[in-house]
């Protein structure tokens, strides 16, 4: 994280992927404890990653990183469980056979996250798709869309904030 603050993209990427793997464990344990199917797991991971990214200024460099991460993860997990309500509570025994076969980590969420993307304004959506799904750099997307790299970054930042808001509001 310190390296990432100094501008090391590669370090930040490695950190985010590490955190994502760790979050996957936290989220599926949390879901299991609440008696929920594991299908939401990847959504929680992505929502938490977004929060961690957008709120990264609240980490105090003089403090260890882990308690901060854990606090954000707990906050997002509780938030998610509360939003879903406890109405669709499933008894874990009824599903013990399906629980035993863990699905490939990411399959369940791809659809949901695409709906999230669809809720973004046209331009924001195209930028996120360009960078995330087609793997282009901000510069390339800018050339393609006739925008400066700076404008792309501003719009991308807005898109990520909108995505985080969509996660918070969309599911009731």
């Amino acid at each position, binding site marked *: 994280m310190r390296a*990432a*603050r100094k*501008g090391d*993209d590669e370090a*930040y*990427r490695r950190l*985010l*992927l590490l955190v*994502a793997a760790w979050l996957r464990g936290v989220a599926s344990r949390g879901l299991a404890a609440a008696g929920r199917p594991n299908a939401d797991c*990847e959504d929680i*991971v*992505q929502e938490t*990653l*977004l*929060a961690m*990214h*957008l*709120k*990264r*200024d*609240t*980490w*105090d460099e003089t*403090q260890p990183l882990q*308690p*901060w991460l854990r*606090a*954000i993860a707990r*906050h997002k997990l509780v938030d998610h469980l509360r939003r879903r309500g406890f109405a669709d509570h499933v008894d874990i025994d009824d599903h013990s056979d399906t629980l035993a076969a863990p699905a490939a980590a*990411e399959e369940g969420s*791809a659809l949901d*996250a*695409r709906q*999230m*993307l669809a809720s973004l304004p046209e331009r924001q959506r195209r930028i*996120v798709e360009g*960078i*995330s*799904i087609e*793997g282009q*750099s*901000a510069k390339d997307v800018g050339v393609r869309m006739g925008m400066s790299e700076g404008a792309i*970054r501003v719009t*991308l*930042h807005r*898109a*990520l904030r909108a995505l985080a808001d969509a996660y*918070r509001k969309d599911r009731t």
Partner: protein
Amino acid sequence: MKTEQLVASLVADRAGSARPLGRSVSRAVLAGALVSLVIFALEFGPRVDLAAALATWRFDAKLVLVLAALMAASVACLAMARPVTTARWRWAVLPVPLIAAAALGTELAVLPAGTWEARLVGSNALVCLTAIPLFALAPLMALLLAMRRTAPASPALAGAACGALAAAAAALIYAFHCFDDSPLFVLTWYSLAAIPVVLLGAAVGHRLLRW
């Protein structure tokens, strides 16, 4: 979108925006206080005997007390803005009751008991109760907006800390208008005036600062 793909967007967005929390908070307070200063200059104005007042211990004690409260509230506000809070911010609050007790003790020792009540009620209580919340409004709004970027463990507490900080900034401005310098008056009425600001901060913060 897969998580690995989301990460690509997050990395691309990383550039530039790691601003220290303290700077955006102090900037918000300053911007809000400027608005309040304009109201102060237009509607209130400094007291006429400001130069003479600066030489009295009561006025100086009032300033020291308000400045200590401002420091304490700033530190508390920054602590509340984070998802994990260490207990360190409490040390910053400690000087406030110490200074208050010292000023109060001196005042009670200096003045004969018969005059305490007149000092406590003062002549400006109503002005104090309206001016401090009024001056606090702009800083409070600026602060709450700045704090939306943060991730408070408790949005209501963070809002209350914003309210305390805004009230302290307002008190600092108002102190230059108010004739009542007795610690008896300051401790009573300034604190009472801060209460609605803190409550408003907590109520708005509870809604606005959720993340």
